[in-house]
């Protein structure tokens, strides 16, 4: 019984982090058709922000709060220097952001070295209910992730910014003709997407080894989640992330992590092939 509870909790925390990463990716992809291959490196930068600030003596939670700001600022620079030149060339965004990811990875190697760093969890305590004990930090991580995911949904589905954003996604020219500054909306969405990646990286930093290669391990599952769920409605990320992350985590109960990941990727590729628009449908209007 206790074992099952722990498996489910582990699954939930992995799924939530994956959804957080994928959500940033889909905001950028759904909004601007920009495929950001450097998203994994922005996630990595979030984790390194914590490494950096903690080394400078900042408390953990302050470092976590700073991560989306730092990474969002990096995102702003990337948008201004790179992305805005290639908005109408989606395939080139893959290549250009790929070059960016290589450069970012190497910049981190130059600054912090190729070795992995570890971030101390702010609380080592575990909490127990019956015979189930679970680290408090992981529970907290889940709560924070749920809150952020809910906030992103609220922004895009309930606020005026979200209304304008959905209009720009559906019909950019018409939105511009109504006086909406589409460039500003694109830039804001890109920064939100990168800040989400940074925040996700900061939150999981205590749980994984922080190294320059960590981005890829989340980038591919995040992309696959989006493709499985569908890049249209935001809810597609929940479905895709839940399926990909959940199955992967569950499969590790019986299989080695490598085999589990291979099996999940293969299943996901079959789903993507059979339903290219994703389980919840593709990019449909606003």
């Amino acid at each position, binding site marked *: 019984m206790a074992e099952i509870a722990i498996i489910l909790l582990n699954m939930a925390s992995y799924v939530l982090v994956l959804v957080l990463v994928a959500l940033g990716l889909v905001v950028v992809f759904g909004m601007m058709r920009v495929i950001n291959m450097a998203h994994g490196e922005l996630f990595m930068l979030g984790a390194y922000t914590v490494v950096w600030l903690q080394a400078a003596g900042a408390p953990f939670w302050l470092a976590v709060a700073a991560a989306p700001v730092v990474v969002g600022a990096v995102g702003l620079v990337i948008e201004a220097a790179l992305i805005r030149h290639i908005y109408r060339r989606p395939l080139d965004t893959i290549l250009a952001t790929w070059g960016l990811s290589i450069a970012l990875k190497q910049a981190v190697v130059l600054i912090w070295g190729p070795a992995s760093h570890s971030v101390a969890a702010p609380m080592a305590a575990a909490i127990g209910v019956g015979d189930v004990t679970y680290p408090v930090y992981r529970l907290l991580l889940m709560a924070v992730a749920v809150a952020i995911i809910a906030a992103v949904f609220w922004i895009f589905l309930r606020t*005026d910014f979200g*209304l*304008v954003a*959905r*209009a720009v996604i*559906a*019909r950019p*020219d*018409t*939105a*511009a*003709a*109504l*006086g*909406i*500054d*589409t*460039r500003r909306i694109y830039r804001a969405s890109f920064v939100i997407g990168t800040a989400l990646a940074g925040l996700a990286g900061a939150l999981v930093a205590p749980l994984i080894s922080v190294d320059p290669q960590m981005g890829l391990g989340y980038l591919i599952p995040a992309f696959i989640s989006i493709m499985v769920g569908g890049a249209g409605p935001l809810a597609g990320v929940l479905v895709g992330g839940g399926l990909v992350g959940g199955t992967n985590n569950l499969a590790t109960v019986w299989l080695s992590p490598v085999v589990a990941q291979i099996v999940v990727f293969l299943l996901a590729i079959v789903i993507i092939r059979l339903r290219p628009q994703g389980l919840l449908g593709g990019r*449909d*209007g*606003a």
Partner: protein
Amino acid sequence: MLRLRGLMGGYGRAAVLHGVDLDVPAGGVVALMGRNGMGKTTLLRTCMGLLPARRGEIRFKDRDITGMATHEIARQGLAYVPQGREIFDALTVEQNLRLGLIGLPGGRDAQVPDAVYDWFPILAERRRQIAGTLSGGQQQMLAIGRALARRPDMLLLDEPTEGIQPSIVHEIAETVARIAADAGLTVLVVEQNVDLVLTTARTIAFMDNGRIVEAAPAAAVAADGAILARHLSL
């Protein structure tokens, strides 16, 4: 109000406009007619900054707007109803109308003016309905209402009756004429439907091969069938 001089433009390398000269006076309703592919839609899109002007000048309210960003042009008071209506299908009628306001600086809290609902009472009735479920005629009214929500000085209207039931065409024509009179709105309308053009427009400009080849008062066109025949028959 709107003054075009030697305007050239098109899609990519293909030139469609070969030097358009056109004047739309304040309060005037001008209809633009011509065979398909003569550059009418291209002209409106170029005025709106959605296509680049390669040469020539676009002046709106005595201001040069050539090369300005689309949203800036819209904020100057030029509104545009594109061909095919382009409403936001997945949003409600009210959200569509609010999108006509939100883009303005300080437009976030603005409410849809009652006048829009007065002109198109059906939109008030269907306020909460998903726009994609409206009929073609209602969608056209929504598109026009959305463009008028922020009280523009001038409206560019592209084929408002395309794909709409004949019974509603007349209603739309009358409403457009009434709005123009009520609100002192200047209108440039691209239209194929002769009936609509003659009820709403005061002047009719004919376009051929990317140029304005003739402009005549609507009354003269109504009286002399040869003018229409010259420009519209194949």
